């Protein structure tokens, strides 16, 4: 095996390397590469037709960008091969295709939408997005290869949650004020949107809490008259956690993130307990809360009114959504072709926020209904792989973690796509992998990395179940006194196995 020979030559720091071929991933990546090259050629042709002065030969729209991006995917593929882990082979090409579509779209839009100056260089929209894509896939690959234990996630779930809330509070008090919203935080040279990272943190916390208290949540211990209620004391900390996160998000007017958190929360609760009642109560609470918000918060009222009838004020409040629907309509079944849509009037783009909030509208116009279906299909593949990883994970924490991460991608894609299509009121969140934005792309990278790592069932077995509640701990106290390490005995002892007795930070 040649790959093994290559691996043998690498320094020992990385440990014994036994490369493992990933032919399915190789084949899929080849398809991705071919599609992106075709897309780039098509984009180049369109711009030539628009500017007939130039020659009409075949070329790539921006050969360097495509080369860098495909090279990046190739390196990620090679690293995964060399790592020798038995990981999912479909996630990387699927995410790679979505990222590639993003790159083509950002190259096609006016480069002046975003300009970043780094030293003497001026980077346009396409350059910046490519940089973020490189970092994002780099992060995904690094996490996929290096994360071999989940103890640091599951044991410190409250710490993570506290850190997440602290980050949000910091944003609320010290964040950059843009249009009355404080969504981004600048620390030194780095600026980002903490709400993006909070998605992952919330999933980690929920997975930890739910996996630990799952049996108790299913038992009906509190009875009020004829109605059986869930054991309230065990639901309280989680609900409080959720309410704090949600409350902050609502205060910041980040409605899309609030909707996302809520949906993922309810989905995980259902996955853990299998009780439809929780979902019903949750949805009713959500509807009641939404109605109160509609009455009290003017922003929400405007959003809902615009959604109800955007054509009432097509040049004012309803402008963006009407323009989005126009774009979908212009696309029709087959689309106008990459680069041939988005007609400008006086040089202005029809949808100002096309690169952040409305990429699907632009893609719907240029790739048509067929393209929209394909992109929705790619998202469904990501979700399907994530849920498959979740269903076959070694224990409940990993199951819930994988399911939660996959649902973050799927739900977020749904919320913004449905907003673009006027199926629900528009909320400003990003379309995963496709929208312009560093924070969003990095978090998507983290999610792909975690999912890849979780898909490897070959390495680390999960820690054995720990006492799952105060009550259980009380009953288990005698046993614990007799054998202090009984609850933590490693099933498969290995050199990397940590045994942190003081790690319980509850």
């Amino acid at each position: 095996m040649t790959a093994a020979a290559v691996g043998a030559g690498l320094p020992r720091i990385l440990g014994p390397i036994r490369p493992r071929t990933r032919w399915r991933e190789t084949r899929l990546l080849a398809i991705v590469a071919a599609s992106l090259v075709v897309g780039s050629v098509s984009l180049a042709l369109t711009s030539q037709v628009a500017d007939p002065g130039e020659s009409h030969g075949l070329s790539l729209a921006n050969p360097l960008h495509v080369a860098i991006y495909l090279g990046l995917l190739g390196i990620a593929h090679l690293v995964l091969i060399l790592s020798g882990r038995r990981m999912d082979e479909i996630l990387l090409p699927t995410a790679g295709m979505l990222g590639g579509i993003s790159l083509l779209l950002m190259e096609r839009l006016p480069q002046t939408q975003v300009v970043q100056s780094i030293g003497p260089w001026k980077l346009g929209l396409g350059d910046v997005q490519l940089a973020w894509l490189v970092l994002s896939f780099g992060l995904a690959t690094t996490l996929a290869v290096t994360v071999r234990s989940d103890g640091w996630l599951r044991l410190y779930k409250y710490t993570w949650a506290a850190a997440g809330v602290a980050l949000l509070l910091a944003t609320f008090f010290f964040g950059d004020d843009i249009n009355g919203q404080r969504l981004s935080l600048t620390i030194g040279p780095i600026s980002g949107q903490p709400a993006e990272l909070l998605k992952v943190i919330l999933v980690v916390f929920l997975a930890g809490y739910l996996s630990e208290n799952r049996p108790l949540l299913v038992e009906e211990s509190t009875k009020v008259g004829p109605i059986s209620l869930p054991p309230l004391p065990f639901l309280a900390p989680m609900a409080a956690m959720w309410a704090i996160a949600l409350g902050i998000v609502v205060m910041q007017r980040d409605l899309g993130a609030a909707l996302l958190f809520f949906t993922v929360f309810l989905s995980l609760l259902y996955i853990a307990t299998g009780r439809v009642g929780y979902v019903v109560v949750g949805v009713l609470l959500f509807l009641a809360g939404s109605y109160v918000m509609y009455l009290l918060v003017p922003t929400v009222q405007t959003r809902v009114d615009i959604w109800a009838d955007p054509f009432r004020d097509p040049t004012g409040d309803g402008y963006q959504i009407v323009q989005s629907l126009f774009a979908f309509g212009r696309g029709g079944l087959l689309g106008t072709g990459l680069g041939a849509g988005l007609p400008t009037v006086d040089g202005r783009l029809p949808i100002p926020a096309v690169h952040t909030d409305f990429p699907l509208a632009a893609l719907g116009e240029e790739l048509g209904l067929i393209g929209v279906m394909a992109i929705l299909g790619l998202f469904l593949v990501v979700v399907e792989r994530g849920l498959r990883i979740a269903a076959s994970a070694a224990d409940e924490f990993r199951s819930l973690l994988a399911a939660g991460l996959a649902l973050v991608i799927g739900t977020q894609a749904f919320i913004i796509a449905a907003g673009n299509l006027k199926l629900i009121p528009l909320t400003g969140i990003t379309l995963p992998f496709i929208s312009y934005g560093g924070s969003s792309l990095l978090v998507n990278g983290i999610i792909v990395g975690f999912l890849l790592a979780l898909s490897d069932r070959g390495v680390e077995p999960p820690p054995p179940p720990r006492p799952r509640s105060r009550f259980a701990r009380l009953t288990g106290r005698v046993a614990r006194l007799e054998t202090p390490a009984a609850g933590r005995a490693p099933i498969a002892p290995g050199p990397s196995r940590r045994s942190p007795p003081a790690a319980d930070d509850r």
Partner: protein
Amino acid sequence: MTATPTPTPPPAPRPTRLTPLGRTIGHVGLALTVAFAGLALGAGYWQVVRSPELTTDPGNPLVISAARNVVRGVIVDRDGKVLASNKRDPDTGQPYRVYSSDAFSGVIGYASRQFGTAGIERSFNAQLTGVSNGNPIGDALRKFELDPYDPQKLTLGISSRLQLAAVDGLGSDRGAVVMLDPRTGEILALATTPTFDNGAVANPNTAEKAFGALRVDKTQPLLNRATQGLYVPGSVFKIVTAVAGLGSGRITPATTFPQQPKAEKDGLVVSGFRIHEHPGVPSRSFDLMSATEWSSNIWYALAGMRTGGEELASFAGRMGFGNQIDTDLPTAASQVSGGGPGPGGFADEVELANASYGQAKTLVTPLQMALVASTVANGGILMRPHVVIATAGRGGIQAVAPSQIGRVISPEDAAAIAAAMQRAVESSIGRQFTTGAKVSGVPTAGKSGTAELGGSGAPHSWFIGFAPVQNPRVAIAVIVERGGRGGQRAAPLAGDLMTLFFRINK
């Protein structure tokens, strides 16, 4: 494995009704798949079902952009005479519209870079700019063309000679003329006065001044009186009453009213309100024929009351009343009644009785009255009125096929009304009211109207009619605002125009 036997294993979870995670994860996956299917349906709705409408919306940037840069398709009359063509601005190189004559300003409207579009230029903007050719498959394949714009040439059913004669005949009076072919619904002339210089509005250099003046002009030249002017109909509405009475079977051509001779002397008392006949009508019993010939208000009031408000409104509705007429131009909805609580929207019997001879809260457009004449002329079948009879582009000529709105009354009833209308034009008595309406050598049918407006001013002069009585080829409605009795202005003008029609179309 160093298997130290543990005396007491960690407390085993109690057996609970835990659903396997795999199953609940499957449920959530299914739910998300359904949600994505909803997205696909939503995209299909906007991109396929609503696409034609969205793509041709005047607010769509594609339409706006095309309107500025594309050389619009020419508009010709039914004989191929050019009515609207293009010139290029010598300074900017941008194209603008020029029109052959002001006489067509009402029907063709204008296409101005500054002030948008009106008339046929507005309703066929998408075809004239080539944004859509009205053929879904052709539009979908447009992306494969090098030049995506395919401006269509429009052929109108308008006959220039009739149109010019109509505008000429109206002269300095305000008014409108609608002529159409009752067999096909093709509009042959659609005149409205005063006309305006639509070329000045289309020319970017004069638009500002011309349009500003038109907007404040008290005579409202921008109002297309033929389709959007709402007038009191007077006696021409009696034909609607006849259609409803015969159509509903409540009256027959032989119906007489025993109370009429007495009522002719001192008026017909309806709920305390006294309806008077116009002077000179003999005090005897009438039937449909003689009542139409004499234009008896009292017979028609009695006929209307016997028919009932509900049937009157219903049959009027079948001819277009109550809704905007489905045609190529925006229309105002004609109304039978004031929208009161009684059947058919009549407040009481008094309103119904007065409406039956056209003097209550009834308001009609000239186009609507032309359709009433056309229905009777075409044996009771109403055809959809249309201005554009063919579009021609790269893909060849597409003729607009005549389409039927529906049958209103039986051929026998239509023939009875036609015979009465012929008497109203051709008998020695009828001729007193419809002076000059007769086309020499062609059996002519018609009904004049004198719309009393209250106050001291002259009444509106109305005429509707058609010819020949057997197998009619032309139907007409004429109104001259403040033109006096029907026989004074409208009837002679209608006679002249129909005479011209038969001279042109031997």
